[in-house]
């Protein structure tokens, strides 16, 4: 800029000198011919013509004039904005608010929905799951089935499979064991994703199946992060032995930085080989190994055609299941794009709804800014008219006003960007847990580009129209009337009133959404949870199960730990559970096919929790019938279990007395240890507060022995240590940690939280949506009120003379106030009715967030409307009072 302007200035000086030289030579010639110096000068000037004009026309030849004009306009715009700071600040705050909200939400939308997965042609990747009568089969696909898909399908280019190991694994690095996730993958997976190891090689593939060759069974591939943290980026890593969960592997390769699979897992991953074995030669529905399937579509094949083809194939494949019950569960498939499978459509829709809300706020802000600019353009009509009279073209005036709009918009967008960062910072926790964003969320270049687009658009929206209105106004009357009372006023007032009505309508839409979510939160907070949450600390432990191979974890790890914690000062009671209710741990599901008659239904699917007998004192589970576990339930006593009310309802005749299930023995801890149901728990919320209780079976931890069926299943999933204490969490955590370190060193890294916090987190999506909408709705209300105030204040100023005249002629002051309030009244009513219609249509989008309330709840609609009306009338009261206070003498003298 400064380079250009300097260049420009020097060019200008040169032109001046060139013309001066011309004149000097002309004068000199004339003097040489004998003319008097005075006469010579006059003649030379006359012959040369209009010096300024010549300079102007010449400068135009440089092709830079637009630049010079732009500089002028910019300087002028800044001067104008400095001259009226209140106007400037109001417009800037308004636009910044709208831009900030939109950019913040767009950053999230971009991060969650728009960014393609870091795999080659990610839109061609699909996920295939078996599905049937009960929906998608939860346990993956046996190899025999996916092999059929691969062989028969014509729409798939390649089929890869993996089993996502939900257990935490321990990789023994240079110094200490680090926690990693360790999915088992087929050899063709990386090739299918189009990402190859950065160092070393991938697994060798069996040409037919894509699985890993048995010779590679003990090789392993590291993620870049693991290679860096555990092995210090050792360049000689390939071929070195490592230990995963105590088992030896040889490093075959290291993946490039940033690569992860399954998408969304943390950076610490190692991939182990999926080698086919004897268990893959049979179809088993519940027993591992079953696999998740990722496939790549052939070019040009659509998702729908692949889905219909695979459905036909799977119907055939399902016939291989001999058990008719199992066959029904897997007789179809569900095919999704891989990136769609990562996020539920509910979440996607709700994110878009929030983004829409921010966009509405942005629109309101633009409308408000446009209204302000319009008012100002009219106030400046005289100035504009003078410039028109002095020869400025209309286009030039519009250009000038648009530059002003752009300057305002650019300044606001800078503030808006800061605001966006602030919003993201404030909502970081909620966004991270709702949308699984693990890294820091900052606006990226795409977001900045959108911001610039929005800025330009809002500049145009809020300046072009007022500029055109101003420039179109005829010059003469504006000059003659010489003041605020212009003939364009009525049209202009109606336009602004329309803008205010629009604002009211849009604000009401946002406010209704906000109200519905607040009601939802209120309802959620009053749901009976079925357990106590106060004074409870939860430690999330990853159990290094491999260290206890061949030993009994129950007696050697769990019970000593619980005993030790129970003896800490201030601990009332402590116990273990495989995942607290509302927690985020992977849930164990218990599937059982019961033979025989009895009241019990045939197929049972229930949540399974292993719980210590002290848990009733810690979480305060309420018993409906029978008893909870107690200290008398040990490995040698009669095995027992408890179920919850939902279980009885679902599988044991809903209407009957729940006590009747006591004494049933439909499953066992092991072959010869049938469990007796000794109690029925009252329902508790397990998955989320908004979800009804699921059927659940609880088994007693001290009774679990290594030969128990679910000992293996539960061992790596981790345990939660739950402690009831009167002491503050911060004072006791250090002692808990050392007790855990004594039990097993790896447990010292466990994370601690409180039960209250877990409950709070499980409001998650509603909380986030409600808070965001409070911010958006509140801002909208504020803008709306300033809009109403601004317009009516303007109206009163415009009509001061008329109002003064009325008062002079005997109008009551109350009547004058009424005139102004009536204006506000009709705007509010019109806005509210349009807004309610809009809200009626849009609140359906929020349906997935709502709990205990319908999207069209009349009370919410009514109270929110009332709030808006009261706010609007309050905003109108000040100008109305000013109107009533008009001094008639003063008003009439203004002419």
């Amino acid at each position, binding site marked *: 800029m400064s380079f250009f302007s300097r260049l420009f200035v020097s060019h200008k000086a*040169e*032109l001046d*000198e*060139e*013309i001066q*030289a*011309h004149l*000097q*030579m*002309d004068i*000199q*010639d004339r003097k040489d011919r004998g003319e008097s110096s005075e006469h010579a000068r006059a003649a030379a000037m006359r*012959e*040369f*013509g*209009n010096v300024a*004009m*010549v300079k*102007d*026309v*010449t400068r*135009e*030849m*440089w*092709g830079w004039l637009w630049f010079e004009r732009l500089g002028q306009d910019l300087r002028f715009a800044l001067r104008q904005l400095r001259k009226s700071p209140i106007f400037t600040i109001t417009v800037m705050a308004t636009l910044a608010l709208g831009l900030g909200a939109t950019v913040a939400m767009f950053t999230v939308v971009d991060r969650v929905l728009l960014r393609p997965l870091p795999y080659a042609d990610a839109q061609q990747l699909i996920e295939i799951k078996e599905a049937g009568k009960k929906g998608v089969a939860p346990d993956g696909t046996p190899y025999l089935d996916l092999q059929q898909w691969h062989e028969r399908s014509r729409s798939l280019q390649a089929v890869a499979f993996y089993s996502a190991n939900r257990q935490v694994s321990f990789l023994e690095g240079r110094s200490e064991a680090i926690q990693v996730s360790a999915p088992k993958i087929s050899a063709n997976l990386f090739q299918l994703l189009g990402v190859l190891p950065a160092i070393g090689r991938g697994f060798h593939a069996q040409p037919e199946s894509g699985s890993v060759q048995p010779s590679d069974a003990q090789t392993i591939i590291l993620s870049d992060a693991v290679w860096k943290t555990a092995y210090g980026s050792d360049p000689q890593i390939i071929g070195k032995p490592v230990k995963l969960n105590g088992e030896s592997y040889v490093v075959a390769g290291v993946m490039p930085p940033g690569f992860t699979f399954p998408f969304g897992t943390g950076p610490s991953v190692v991939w182990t080989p999926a080698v086919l074995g004897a268990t893959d030669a049979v179809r088993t529905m519940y027993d591992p190994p079953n696999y998740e399937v990722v496939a790549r579509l052939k070019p040009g094949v659509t998702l729908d055609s692949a889905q219909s083809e695979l459905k036909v194939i799977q119907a055939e494949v399902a016939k291989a299941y001999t058990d008719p019950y199992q066959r029904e569960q897997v007789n179809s498939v569900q095919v999704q794009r891989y990136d769609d499978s990562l996020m539920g459509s509910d979440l996607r829709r709700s994110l878009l709804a929030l983004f829409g809300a921010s966009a509405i706020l942005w629109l309101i802000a633009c409308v408000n800014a446009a209204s302000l600019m319009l008012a100002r353009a009219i106030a400046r009509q005289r100035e504009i008219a003078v410039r028109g009279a002095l*020869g400025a*073209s209309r286009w030039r005036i519009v250009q000038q006003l648009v530059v002003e709009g752009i300057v305002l918009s650019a300044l606001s967008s800078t503030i808006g960007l800061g605001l966006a960062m602030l919003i993201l910072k404030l909502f970081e926790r909620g966004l991270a847990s709702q949308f699984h964003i693990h890294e820091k969320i900052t606006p990226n270049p795409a977001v900045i580009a959108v911001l610039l687009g929005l800025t330009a658009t809002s500049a145009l929206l809020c300046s072009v129209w007022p500029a055109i209105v101003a420039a179109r106004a005829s010059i003469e009357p504006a000059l003659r009337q010489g003041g605020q009372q212009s003939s364009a006023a009525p049209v202009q007032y109606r336009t602004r009133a329309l803008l205010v009505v629009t604002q009211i309508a849009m604000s009401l839409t946002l406010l209704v959404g906000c109200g519905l979510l607040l009601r939802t939160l209120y309802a959620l907070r009053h749901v009976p949870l079925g357990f106590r949450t106060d004074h409870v600390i939860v430690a999330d432990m990853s159990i290094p199960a491999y260290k206890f191979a061949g030993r009994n974890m129950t007696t050697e790890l769990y019970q000593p730990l619980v005993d030790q914690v129970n003896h800490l000062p201030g601990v009332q009671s402590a116990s273990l559970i495989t995942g607290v209710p509302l927690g985020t741990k992977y849930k164990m599901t218990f599937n059982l096919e019961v033979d025989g008659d009895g009241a019990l239904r045939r197929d049972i699917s229930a949540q399974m929790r292993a719980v210590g007998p002290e848990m009733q004192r810690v979480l305060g589970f309420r018993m409906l019938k029978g008893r909870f576990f107690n200290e008398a339930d040990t490995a040698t006593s009669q095995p027992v279990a408890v179920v919850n009310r939902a279980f009885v309802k679902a599988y044991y005749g809903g209407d009957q007395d729940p006590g009747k299930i006591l004494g049933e023995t439909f499953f066992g801890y092991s072959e010869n240890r049938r469990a007796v149901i000794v109690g029925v728990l009252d329902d508790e919320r397990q998955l989320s507060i908004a979800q009804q209780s699921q059927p659940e079976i609880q088994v007693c931890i001290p009774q679990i022995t290594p030969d128990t069926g679910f000992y293996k299943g539960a061992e790596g999933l981790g345990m939660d240590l739950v402690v009831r204490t009167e002491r503050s969490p911060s004072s006791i955590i250090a002692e808990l940690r050392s007790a855990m370190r004594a039990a097993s060193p790896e447990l010292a890294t466990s994370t601690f939280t409180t039960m209250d916090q877990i409950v709070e987190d499980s409001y998650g999506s509603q909380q986030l949506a409600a808070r965001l909408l409070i911010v958006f709705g509140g801002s909208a209300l504020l803008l709306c009120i300033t809009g109403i105030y601004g317009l009516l204040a303007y109206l009163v100023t415009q009509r001061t003379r008329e109002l003064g005249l009325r008062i002079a002629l005997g109008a009551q002051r109350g009547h004058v106030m009424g005139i102004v309030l009536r204006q506000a009244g009709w705007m509010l009513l019109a806005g509210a009715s349009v807004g309610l219609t809009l809200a009626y249509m849009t609140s359906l989008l929020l349906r997935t967030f709502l709990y205990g309330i319908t999207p069209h709840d009349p009370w919410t609609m009514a109270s929110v409307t009332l709030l808006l009306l009261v706010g609007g009338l309050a905003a109108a009261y000040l100008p109305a009072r000013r109107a009533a206070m008009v001094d008639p003498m003063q008003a009439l003298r203004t002419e």
Partner: protein
Amino acid sequence: MIGRNGYKNRIELLQGTLDMLILQTLQWGPRHGYGIVQALHADSGEALQLETGSLYPALHRMERQGWVRSEWKQTESNQRAKYYRITAPGKKQLASDLSRWQQMVDVIGSIMRPVREGGEA
């Protein structure tokens, strides 16, 4: 405003010819703006008085187009002035302008001649 448009119109009318005249003048050596006016005035038998409002825009435009180059020098009377020199592309342009102009004169001449002949007959 009208004044400015007036200038523009005149430049447009004269443009091709004006460029040709200026380039032709510069063929005999570099000259400053005033010198060009004087030369054309003298060469046309005092019939042509070039307007500065056309001359300077034309010079600056041709400089941008690369047909002339300028430098500051002292005149014989010790006046610092900006001299314009014709460049190789300028000479090419002059040649093509000249041939086009020649063609134009021929065409117009051949149209106008029969009328005059007819008038004589």
